[in-house]
């Protein structure tokens, strides 16, 4: 055959493993986006700090010499100083210590609830999108019911039923993130299912399970990862909101939303009590959002090269 006129190869010195290559590609594209890289390192730093402080008391004493829940009425309403970096609250507790110790709560709620929501939402979405018809209708109507409630209201309702506690807030936020996952995954599955390569692989005799796990899931993975990251930000906000309303973390737990509520009564004379927890929430949510956006751009196959 003299059929090789159409050679397209980009000349390459050595054959790289395709996995390694695609991961390298991803990093190259992601690191181009500087804000996203900063967001990533902020998250990494905060996670590291949260884990260190909550697991190793030796480091904890160095980082936060003041106990987050010890009441010291003599030093109440102190502004930021070298002794109390972020000042003290209306009970004289060190705000810096409380924020650092609250980090594990905030991040924990964010991660755990989104993972729980994903575990329920992703299979629902894939099954609905892949099989369509009645199964799709039943699953999506259920999801629509969840979606019909405004997020915070739904979470409120769930927490009111289960009772106010951190675990219940996590469950509430998880349930609240299920519809988002299900809808996004269903949409991507519908789009993927219609592609010719799914027909092609079916024409090769693959089973539905094989098609779903090996050919649909990898193609809907990027929206899942991106949305999980962005949902963590929303989950943190919702959880903080619930705690602000007194339905989440119970005193004296140093939850940021609850701290914000503590500062609410002293906004005029001691604004720093509300300011620093608010700033912490802002930084974390912003970091996750920017990181999520960067991930989305880097994972978009249309942006290859």
């Amino acid at each position: 055959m003299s059929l090789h006129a159409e050679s397209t190869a980009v000349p390459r010195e050595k054959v790289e493993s395709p996995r390694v290559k695609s991961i390298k590609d991803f990093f190259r594209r992601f690191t181009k986006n500087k804000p996203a890289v900063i967001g990533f390192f902020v998250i990494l730093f905060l996670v590291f700090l949260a884990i260190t402080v909550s697991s190793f008391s030796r480091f904890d004493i160095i980082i936060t010499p003041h106990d987050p829940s010890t009441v010291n009425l003599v030093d109440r309403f102190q502004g930021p100083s070298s002794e109390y970096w972020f000042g003290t609250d209306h009970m004289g507790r060190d705000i810096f210590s409380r924020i650092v110790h609250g980090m594990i709560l905030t991040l924990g709620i964010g991660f755990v609830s989104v993972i729980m929501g994903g575990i329920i939402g992703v299979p629902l979405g894939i099954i609905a999108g892949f099989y369509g018809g009645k199964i799709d209708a039943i699953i999506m109507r259920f999801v629509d019911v969840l979606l019909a409630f405004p997020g915070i209201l739904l979470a409120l309702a769930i927490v009111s039923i289960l009772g106010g506690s951190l675990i219940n807030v996590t469950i509430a936020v998880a349930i609240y993130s299920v519809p988002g996952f299900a809808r996004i995954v269903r949409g991507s599955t519908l789009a993927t299912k219609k592609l010719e390569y799914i027909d092609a692989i079916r024409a090769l005799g693959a089973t539905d399970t094989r098609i779903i796990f090996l050919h649909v899931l990898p193609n809907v993975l990027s929206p899942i990862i991106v949305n999980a990251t962005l949902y963590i930000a929303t989950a943190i906000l919702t959880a903080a909101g619930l705690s602000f309303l007194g339905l989440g973390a119970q005193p004296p737990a140093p939850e940021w939303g609850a701290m914000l509520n503590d500062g609410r009564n002293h906004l005029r004379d001691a604004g720093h009590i509300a300011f620093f927890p608010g700033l912490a929430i802002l930084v974390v949510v912003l970091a996750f959002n920017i990181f999520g956006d960067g991930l989305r751009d880097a994972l978009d196959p249309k942006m290859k090269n």
Partner: protein
Amino acid sequence: MGSENNILRVNNLQTSFFIDGGHEIKAVDGVTFDVPEGKTLGIVGESGSGKSITALSILKLIDSPGKIKGGEINLKGENLVDKTEKAMRKIRGNTISMIFQEPMTSLNPTYTVGQQIRESYKIHQGLGKRESTEKVIEMLKLVGIPSPEKRINQYPFELSGGMRQRVMIAMALACNPELLIADEPTTALDVTIQAQILELIKELQDELGMSVIMITHDLGVVAETCDFVAVMYCGKVVEYAEVKTLFKNPRHPYTVGLLKSLPRSDIDQLELIPIKGTVPSPDNMPEGCSFAPRCPFATELCHDHLPDLLEIGDGEQIRCWIYTDDWDGDPEVKVYEP
């Protein structure tokens, strides 16, 4: 038809789509044809004539709301219409393989070429990565891809259209199918690559001894590659004949119209001769022959009654009143002057 060694006999296949609460659209309505062993059958027809649905029906890959309503798909004596999904999976890719129109979208962008060809071996022979790598390289060589050791680790987006179609062919042929269905395999490719791919399919057919169903709307492709032709119009086969007979002596007015509409190089020609009118929409099919509204010879009989698929001559089949005893139009009607 006389030949006993048909690998596939499709008899009165009917596939319909049920939309908007039971409204039926007959995409394939009584398709009958044979595929002789080791030969190539061309299915020609314009867009929407049911070619691709026929192909998907053979593999039973019709998705809801579509349904195979009746007929027989006889593969070496076994009726596929009665087979379970599980049994069909063993046939797909193993006995019957299919290649698709768009090489750009028929490969999964998230896997390398090697991984995708490996799928065939994994699904049907349970081979792991190590055992199949050699076979994959062999397959890539067979379909004429240079330096397969390198290609095996490349992603589809790194290959040209022609290369991808070769990879598709390699995937389809990995398990040595007895029948290859090629659904417009060259439509998305430019002309020189088209010729290469058609040549490749022919070579592989000779080498592996398989039968081919070539679905196309290009009569040139049919003339070059096929042994038999089924001409489809509105979900029905209107003419089935050997390729030489069809081009030399077409009988159905639709086939005649198609051939007349081709540009010719042997006479001076200022304009092409089109078939007047348009294809009737599938939810508004004429009661009689579906070609009657466009047919220059149509009589009342044609408009009111659907002709049967008649066997005439040596293995030829035709669905037209002109060739029956009931014909009430001009008996002198000569549909084609060479």
